[in-house]
């Protein structure tokens, strides 16, 4: 029987604030355990949470970026469960009346088609602490530094139909939160965590199958593998006469499988109710305007504009708008060089390859956008060939200065003096009578040999177009 996969994602993204969502404790990553957990985070008696204005603003920015309705009035609720890294015995979250309502994002699939994925809602909540299960003589260590860190939980509609679509959507949200500056999206530090709700149903069936929720996936690759495994598990189960149980599962990367987190089912009775410690949050037009005033151009708009303004292919436009930093870098190179297509080739090719090779990022890139533009101008004005430019690029990467300095220091200026090139070619022709005869007898391929010789003997500096012209003229029978 053919099966259809149905996937919805819940993404927890940490908001870029200095202090916690309900307390004045700092949120810096990597502090000594429990040095950033204050009385409010610990849930000590008599404390009162006060909402962080910036967390609200960042949530509003996200809502605007996905064209969602921002709730003029939203409320916080208590989600009750017991776990040692949750000192209060409840997590402050939003249940009814979340701050961000229905919105949508577009994803581009491998075959180039564009698909719209619905976002059901996004709500503010606090993170829990961290449990360390090793090395404490059979006890569990608790670090509450993360408790109270502001999160935006972004809930999608069950709109995705394959692991690849789920990854495309997750990457899109990841790109978006970084573009609009609401989260650093750092997956190693847990700033971007994904839960996947996965079910299968016979193709053509309307009703959804029973779903399993895969919790806490922190890489796109694992997300794809976890869903892939889960889909196969569910299909095997049903085809073998079994039924899928609604449950929470964990993905084990080492074994590449999901497994049940037993006992979580009864705990799913969270008994939400409005938090009496927090009043309703009202967002008026002024607040909305202030929060979204400096929203940057969004990736979709940028991608479209790059194709129109800079004449880029869809592929290049997609590549160069992956992050805001890369897009800004490219635009500086394009503007300063006046050659957007060459700029796209160099940024998308040589530069990204060098960054990947050194596992660096643009922030630490040894070649500034202005300097790369300078290199491109030297290709354009014929000072160096494209091939020599790669050599110049490498020297610039290794701290050799700007393009002109490298060209000067290494004597890489292209030879465009046709007299000099003719002398060179005359010598080559004289030294290779056999090849000359072969060429004149109709063996066109030998032409490449002469070009190669000319480039080699000029140290790559002879202007290739001139070499071609002169060779053709001199070799003519």
């Amino acid at each position, binding site marked *: 029987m053919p099966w259809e996969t149905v996937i919805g994602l819940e993404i927890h993204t940490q908001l870029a604030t200095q202090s916690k969502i309900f*307390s004045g404790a700092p949120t810096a990553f990597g502090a000594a355990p429990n040095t950033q957990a204050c009385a409010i985070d610990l849930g*000590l008696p008599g404390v009162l949470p006060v909402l962080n204005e910036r967390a609200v603003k960042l949530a509003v920015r996200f809502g605007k970026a996905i064209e969602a309705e921002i709730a003029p009035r939203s409320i916080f609720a208590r989600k009750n469960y017991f776990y040692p890294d949750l000192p209060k015995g409840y997590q402050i979250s939003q249940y009814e009346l979340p701050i961000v309502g229905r919105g949508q994002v577009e994803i581009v699939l491998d075959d180039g088609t564009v698909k719209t994925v619905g976002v059901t809602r996004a709500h503010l909540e606090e993170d829990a602490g961290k449990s360390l299960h090793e090395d404490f003589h059979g006890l569990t260590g*608790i670090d509450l530094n993360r408790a109270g860190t502001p999160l935006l939980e972004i809930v999608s509609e069950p709109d995705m139909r394959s692991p690849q679509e789920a990854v495309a959507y997750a990457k899109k949200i990841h790109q978006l939160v970084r573009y609009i500056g609401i989260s650093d999206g750092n997956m190693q530090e847990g700033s971007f965590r994904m839960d996947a709700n996965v079910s299968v149903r016979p193709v053509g069936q309307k009703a959804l199958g029973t779903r399993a929720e895969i919790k806490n996936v922190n890489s796109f690759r694992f997300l794809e593998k976890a869903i892939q495994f889960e889909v196969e598990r569910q299909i095997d189960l049903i085809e073998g006469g079994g039924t899928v149980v609604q449950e929470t599962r964990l993905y084990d990367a080492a074994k590449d499988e999901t497994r049940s987190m037993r006992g979580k089912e009864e705990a799913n009775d969270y008994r939400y109710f409005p938090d009496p410690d927090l009043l309703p949050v009202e967002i008026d037009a002024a607040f909305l305007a202030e929060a979204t005033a400096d929203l940057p151009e969004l990736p979709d708009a940028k991608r479209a504009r790059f194709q129109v303004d800079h004449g880029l292919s869809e592929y290049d436009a997609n590549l160069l708008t992956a992050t805001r930093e890369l897009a800004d870098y490219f635009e500086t190179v394009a503007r300063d060089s006046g050659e957007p297509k060459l700029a796209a080739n160099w940024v998308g090719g040589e530069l990204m390859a060098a960054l990947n090779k050194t596992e660096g990022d643009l922030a630490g890139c040894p070649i500034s956008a202005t300097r790369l533009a300078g290199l491109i101008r030297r290709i354009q004005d014929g000072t160096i060939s494209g091939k020599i430019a790669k050599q110049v690029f490498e020297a610039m990467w290794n701290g050799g200065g700007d393009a002109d300095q490298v060209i000067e220091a290494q004597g890489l200026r292209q030879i465009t003096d046709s007299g000099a090139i003719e002398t060179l070619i005359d010598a080559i022709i004289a030294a290779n009578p056999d090849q000359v005869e072969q060429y004149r007898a109709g063996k066109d391929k030998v032409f490449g040999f002469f070009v190669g010789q000319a480039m080699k003997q000029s140290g790559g500096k002879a202007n290739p177009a001139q070499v071609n012209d002169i060779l053709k003229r001199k070799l003519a029978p």
Partner: protein
Amino acid sequence: MSLDSSDIEKIAHLARLGIDPERTARYAADLSNILDLVARMDAVDTAGVDPMAHPLHMVQRLRPDQPSEPDQREPFQSIAPLTEGGLYLVPKVIE
């Protein structure tokens, strides 16, 4: 609406309350009475009345995003039963 003993046991478990089994029936009766009162209120026509999340007619004040709480780990951990290396230690929880 009436609760039976199994409801009481479930609620007590969710709230991590240890209750005397002999009193379960009494709790069931008491809580059922409360729910009956809620049911009576629920019967009132509230069409056109906005649900109230809070009895005060006020909105949430917002706090500027500035760290203001100093590290007080030492006094906090002095009242904890067990700590090590800055961590609170608790009985092992297995997921």
